[in-house]
């Protein structure tokens, strides 16, 4: 008993000291930043006053010394500005530290020492500058990894100098809020879960909470594994795999794979904007700056320069609506085919064939003679095999032709001058008139040349579908789906419109990347892909072309949460094959941290096999299914449920419908009776009560979830089952389902 009191007093004292240090450093930082700001302003003023005259002198007198002095002044100013910016960062970090300086402690004894050191671990480090004493270690530092990796007993970590071995005597975790020690306890493996339980029994905020403190061993290993070129994670709903990816990005940025890793070097590919905004809190919280976050649609816009494109969500919406099943059938089959490796192979062959079948090489005339014969041009393009990108070969071809033109140009101008001189019906001088004519000619010439050397990729793509014989010739020996004729017809028809369907847009992006050189992402070192189960082989082929071969990938997915296609674990084999990295691994995360036991149990009925999902031991209410005799009654019940949730103090309540259209209808009915928000792709925050379709909810979590339409009209088949799995696994504490009409057979 006394021991606990003693420890408590000690920890409170230690906390106060740490915060005191942080506060001291903060006020120093604020002062120094203020001083620097003033210094910058006065330096800038000084420089401009002294040197406005001097600048004109420099040009005249070429006074080297003045120039040097000027440049030194400017350098000094930009140095001051960088220092100032670093100070601002430091200030923000210290302000955070004062609220929550650390969350864990280990007592570690290095093998070559006698005593145990108290190592406090927090979101960033805190050093007493005079004595160099480490008050707090950054969670990403090598020593801190011991906390995650080991229990009490022998332990080690990797430092730049080599492997450091030692012993752990104590593992303690803290909950510190606003500078106050709420509680702490000593952890071994079991009780860590207890801590997690405590944390999760609170309500989720609309932004995903940073779970730095709660990273479990397996997650930590994924985060810190810097050697693997490709890490794939199959993680069930609520396993924290997305958090893991973000933490990995932060960790890798912190350490750097090469000495030059900056924040620009990591790209996260995430499915929609809501998701991006939702996680925007986590990274600053971890002490990092922004990471490049990109939707796949952005990649398509960027590579094709074409904006009128169907988004993935639009495609999903069109597939989920109760259309004629013919329509969604052909759309699905088309997407599946055009996303497949088979189609990618066809596109590859197509590009190789372009110079043979689709380019019209013509003789080039200049100065009255042929300076380039068409056979030569064709041969040159075909033989330029060292250059993989067709556009580069065509650029070379253009230069090749122009070289001949330039050689002839003098002769040509002489000829033109003679012509002009002979026809004196002009007011201009001979040389100028001749030049003007030459410019005119050359302009025509280059336009003719560009007809050969510039490709319109969209037009070429259309040709692929307008000529079935050609298509089949190209696809020889490739396995085609049974409904290929239908797909060809359908695509050919759709391509007449300006609006490109999602699957065609992807193909276009692929073609662009194969034809043109793309340097946009040359310094990317890490690529993180979330919701990988929703992507097709063509997506990964595109990424392969977009990012450097040396970049490392972290791929996250859950095969149970696909929408619009069926997928099993072989997905990861496919991905491995396409990305073709030297070292790769697949990790499965089966522990779900998000929902209560009851909700988790309930959601597994929507999974096909006995897919292993272990829950986390939190208990709550059993999800219930409620029926209403009419739409009005249904609305009343839903409103009732919303009010119950609000009474129970849930911060985020999600009304989930199958499609966006359903969401809009529901919203319209309820908006005058209760305070709710309709969510679309561009919505910023997810507090309060919101309505949206299932496919927009992926990866997000809410205190309470209300599934509004579980009748048999809405949910019938296996794909709908998956939707219900996704929807029910969004809930942290409370889940209920409502319908009117006949109950879906999936719930029976």
């Amino acid at each position, binding site marked *: 008993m006394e021991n606990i009191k003693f420890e408590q007093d000690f920890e409170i004292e230690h906390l106060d000291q740490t915060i005191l240090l942080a506060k001291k450093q903060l006020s120093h930082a604020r002062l120094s930043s203020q001083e620097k700001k003033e210094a910058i302003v006065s330096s800038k003023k000084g420089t401009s006053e002294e040197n406005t005259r001097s600048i004109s002198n420099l040009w005249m007198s070429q006074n080297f010394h003045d120039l040097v002095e000027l440049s030194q002044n400017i350098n000094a100013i930009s140095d001051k500005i960088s220092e100032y910016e670093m100070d601002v960062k430091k200030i923000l970090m210290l302000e955070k530290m004062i609220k929550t300086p650390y969350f864990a402690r280990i007592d570690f004894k290095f093998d070559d020492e006698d005593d145990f050191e108290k190592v406090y671990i927090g979101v960033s480090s805190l050093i007493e500058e005079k004595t160099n004493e480490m008050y707090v270690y950054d969670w990403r530092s090598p020593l801190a990894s011991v906390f995650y990796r080991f229990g009490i007993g022998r332990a080690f970590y990797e430092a730049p100098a080599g492997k450091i071995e030692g012993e752990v005597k104590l593992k303690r975790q803290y909950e510190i809020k606003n500078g106050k020690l709420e509680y702490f306890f000593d952890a071994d493996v079991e009780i860590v879960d207890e801590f997690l339980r405590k944390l999760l029994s609170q309500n989720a905020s609309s932004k995903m909470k940073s779970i730095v403190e709660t990273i479990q061993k397996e997650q930590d290993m994924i985060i810190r594994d810097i050697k693997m070129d490709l890490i794939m994670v199959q993680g069930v709903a609520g396993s924290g795999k997305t958090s893991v990816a973000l933490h990995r990005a932060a960790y890798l940025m912190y350490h750097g794979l090469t000495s030059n890793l900056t924040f620009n070097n990591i790209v996260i590919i995430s499915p929609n904007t809501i998701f991006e905004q939702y996680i925007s809190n986590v990274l600053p919280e971890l002490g990092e700056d922004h990471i490049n976050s990109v939707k796949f649609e952005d990649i398509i816009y960027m590579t094709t320069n074409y904006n009128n494109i169907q988004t993935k969500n639009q495609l999903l919406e069109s597939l989920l609506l109760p259309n004629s099943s013919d329509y969604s059938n052909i759309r699905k089959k088309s997407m599946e085919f055009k996303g497949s490796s088979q189609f990618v192979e066809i596109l590859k062959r197509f590009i190789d064939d372009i110079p043979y079948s689709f380019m019209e090489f013509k003789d080039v005339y200049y100065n009255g003679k042929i300076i380039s014969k068409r056979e030569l041009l064709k041969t040159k393009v075909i033989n330029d095999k060292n250059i993989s990108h067709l556009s580069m070969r065509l650029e070379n071809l253009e230069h090749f032709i*122009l070289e001949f*033109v*330039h050689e002839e*140009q003098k002769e040509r101008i002489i000829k033109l001058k003679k012509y002009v001189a002979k026809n004196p019906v002009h007011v*201009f001088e001979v*040389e*100028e*008139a001749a*030049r*003007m004519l*030459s*410019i*005119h*000619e*050359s*302009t025509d*010439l*280059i336009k003719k040349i560009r007809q050969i050397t510039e490709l319109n990729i969209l037009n070429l793509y259309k040709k692929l579908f307008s000529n079935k014989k050609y298509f089949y010739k190209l696809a020889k020996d490739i396995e085609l789906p049974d409904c290929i004729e239908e797909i060809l017809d359908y695509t050919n028809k759709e391509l007449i419109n300006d609006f490109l369907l999602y699957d065609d847009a992807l193909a276009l992006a692929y073609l662009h990347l194969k034809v043109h050189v793309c340097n946009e992402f040359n310094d990317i070192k890490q690529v993180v892909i979330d919701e990988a189960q929703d992507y097709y082989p063509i997506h990964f082929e595109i990424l392969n072309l977009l990012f450097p071969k040396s970049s490392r990938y972290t791929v996250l997915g859950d095969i149970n949460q696909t929408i619009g296609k069926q997928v099993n674990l072989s997905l990861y084999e496919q991905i491995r094959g396409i990305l073709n990295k030297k070292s790769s691994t697949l990790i499965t995360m089966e522990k779900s941290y998000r929902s209560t036991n009851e909700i988790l149990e309930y959601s597994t009925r929507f999974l096909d096999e006995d897919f292993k999902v272990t829950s986390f031991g939190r208990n709550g209410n059993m999800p219930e299914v409620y029926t209403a005799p009419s739409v009005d009654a249904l609305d009343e019940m839903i409103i009732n449920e919303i009010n119950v949730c609000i009474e129970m103090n849930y911060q985020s309540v999600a009304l989930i419908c199958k499609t966006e259209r359903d969401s809009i209808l529901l919203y319209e009915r309820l908006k005058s009776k209760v305070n709710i928000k309709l969510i679309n792709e561009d919505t910023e925050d997810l507090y309060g009560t919101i309505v949206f379709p299932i496919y927009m909810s992926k990866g997000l979590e809410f205190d309470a979830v209300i599934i509004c339409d579980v009748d048999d009209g809405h949910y019938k088949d296996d794909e709908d089952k998956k939707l219900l799995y996704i929807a029910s696994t969004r809930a942290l504490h409370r889940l209920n389902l409502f319908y009117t009409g006949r109950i879906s057979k999936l719930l029976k």
Partner: protein
Amino acid sequence: MVYKKLVKILSEIIGSDDEDITPETELTVDNGIEAIDVAKLVIECEQCFKITIHDEDVHTFKKVGDIEEYIKKIKSDI
């Protein structure tokens, strides 16, 4: 340097003041610049800056700034 000389050459050709010409000034008839003036400009620039301007590139010069960039690029590639 390049810009100043360029402006001087152009203003002499079309008979305007140096100040009336900016990098954004378009090489069009509206601004008093005809095809023959462009030809004159090209010839003068070649002499003044000691470079060769390829005739097939001339149609890409939409404004004064474009020529400036072109000349600078050639000079830096030499």
